[in-house]
């Protein structure tokens, strides 16, 4: 996914040499002819975009504001208008607020650990060593594979009693996970989902960090070395500040990823295991993305799911707004 700030930059770039700057009579007719050609080339893309990406955003709002009968999937027209009833219900839905909390918890775990893992791999690879390319590929490879499959494999590894990781822990005397496995205990379920996901995704951040690190001028390090800076000092005062744009980017895509988290939860925990919160059973990995899916696919409450996805959109926009503020202030 491209970075948003880079995109605006590109738009501005094209604007400077764009049309309309000096449309003489001849330019104007060329522009008209070119426009016709251009939209012909764009037609297939724009038709799909309009029907399947633009229309749904508005249609989702329509659904969110209407009562969708539970037994019907033909939901064009004839629906009862209920205004903000779905949203009102959502704001008093403990399960929903819990899911937001779990999403934040998920983000709070995966963003720092993902950044740390990516940066560590990049630092290891930023050396003149043999087989660097092979290691780089090995670290990146899981990123292209299916989250569902990765999740299924991890359920096997995390299994109670017989899972390989459970047995490894047992062999060093840790039997806490034996009975219920890593995914069966509320305290370890979310960290275990995150761990599996970090190993899968670290290769992506690694490439970004690696290219940022390789862009740092060696003379900076040499100067610091002459001044007697320790390797740790060089890392914290040269490397870290200079890769900060990548770190901020990782925070943004990490947040968006957390708000969309679904496949990892579906494959590994289905939102469980349940914890008792004030007498209510709530899932320890019950993230919002999974709740939307569950509401739609298992409970067939389409209007409610649409309302929830709108709140998800609101949260995404809010967070990226905050992030952009932060980005502008810091860089």
């Amino acid at each position, binding site marked *: 996914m491209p970075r948003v700030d880079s995109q605006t930059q590109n738009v501005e770039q094209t604007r400077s040499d764009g049309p309309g700057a000096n449309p003489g009579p001849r330019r104007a007719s060329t522009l008209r002819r070119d426009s016709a050609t251009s939209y012909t080339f764009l037609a297939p893309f724009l038709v799909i975009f309009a029907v*399947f990406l633009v229309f749904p955003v508005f249609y989702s709002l329509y659904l969110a504001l209407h009562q969708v009968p539970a037994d019907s999937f033909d939901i064009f027209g004839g629906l009862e208008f209920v205004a903000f009833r779905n949203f009102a219900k959502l704001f008093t839905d403990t399960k929903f607020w819990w899911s937001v909390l779990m999403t934040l918890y998920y983000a709070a775990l995966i963003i720092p650990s993902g950044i740390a893992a990516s940066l560590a791999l990049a630092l290891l690879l930023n050396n003149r060593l043999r087989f660097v390319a092979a290691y780089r590929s090995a670290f990146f490879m899981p990123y292209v594979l299916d989250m569902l499959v990765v999740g299924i494999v991890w359920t096997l590894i995390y299994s109670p009693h017989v899972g390989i990781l459970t047995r490894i822990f047992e062999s060093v005397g840790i039997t806490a996970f034996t009975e219920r496995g890593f995914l069966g205990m509320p305290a370890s379920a979310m960290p275990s989902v995150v761990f599996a996901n970090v190993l899968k995704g670290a290769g992506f951040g690694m490439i970004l960090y690696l290219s940022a690190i390789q862009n740092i001028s060696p003379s900076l390090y040499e100067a610091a070395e002459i001044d007697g800076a320790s390797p740790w000092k060089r890392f914290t005062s040269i490397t870290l500040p200079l890769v900060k744009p990548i770190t901020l980017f990782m925070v943004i895509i990490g947040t968006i990823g957390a708000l969309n988290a679904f496949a990892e939860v579906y494959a590994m925990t289905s939102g469980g295991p349940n914890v008792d919160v004030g007498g209510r059973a709530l899932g320890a990995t019950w993230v919002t*993305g999974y709740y939307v899916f569950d509401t739609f696919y298992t409970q067939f409450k389409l209007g409610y799911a649409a309302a929830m996805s709108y709140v998800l959109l609101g949260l995404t926009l809010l967070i990226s707004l905050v992030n952009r503020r932060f980005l502008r202030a810091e860089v």
Partner: protein
Amino acid sequence: MDRTGVVVARRTFLYVGLTVAAIVVLFPFFWMVVTAFKEPGQAFSQEILPSKPTLENFRRVLSDYGFARYFVNSVIVATIAALFATLFATMAGYVFAKKQFIGRDKLFGFLLASLMIPGMMYVVPQFAIINKLGWMNTYQAMIVPHLANVFGLFLMRQYMMTIPSELLEAAKIDGAGEWQVFRTIMIPLSIPIIATLFLLTFQFHWNNFLWQLIVTNVERLYTVPVGLAMFKSAHEELYTLKMAGSCISVLPIAGLFFFAQRYFIEGMTMGALKG
């Protein structure tokens, strides 16, 4: 320690670090493969490597549990979708890179803004549209909604902007039409990015599990991930078979990555790095 001693120690440390990291990162896939070769029901045997490796699990998931069919479906969906998504993005990328037309910059900004919208947003309304069109349980339901790939368009445009416009103008002076310029100049000069986008969209559709799950409910049309998810919930305990199914699901993408990793890595990180 003398200078060479330090260098050797440092190198050893780095190799050990890299190797440990590689083992940890790749372990799940190693475990998936060895479990798939264990005898059925022996998923949790104490041995690391199967003493009597068998292809029985693969035979059974492919024939008894329909994975051969799912595999064909996945190939059909991912190939057709990748072809059209790449073609549409190439055509659109061309005009955004090389043409001046009314509303260009506004439209481009609008397209890019759509990347901010969380994917979960689309699930319910897209399902409603597919249902209205009567496309439930069809290939086109799995393919068509994802053919407008904005990220792909962005990659295309970035790449095509580096192709000198003089080449296009020269061809036009020689009397070539728009489509001819596109076909005989832009496409040949953009082969690396076209290959990249084809691979990325193929990978996307191969792994597009959630959407494929939503629009199919007949076994005949299951793709590999959907078949795997159904198998997972129906046969929770058949781990060796599940791992064989997982291998079948992962193998094509792992293979493509092995042969074309440069395209994958560059394509996936380009959007974040350039600009």
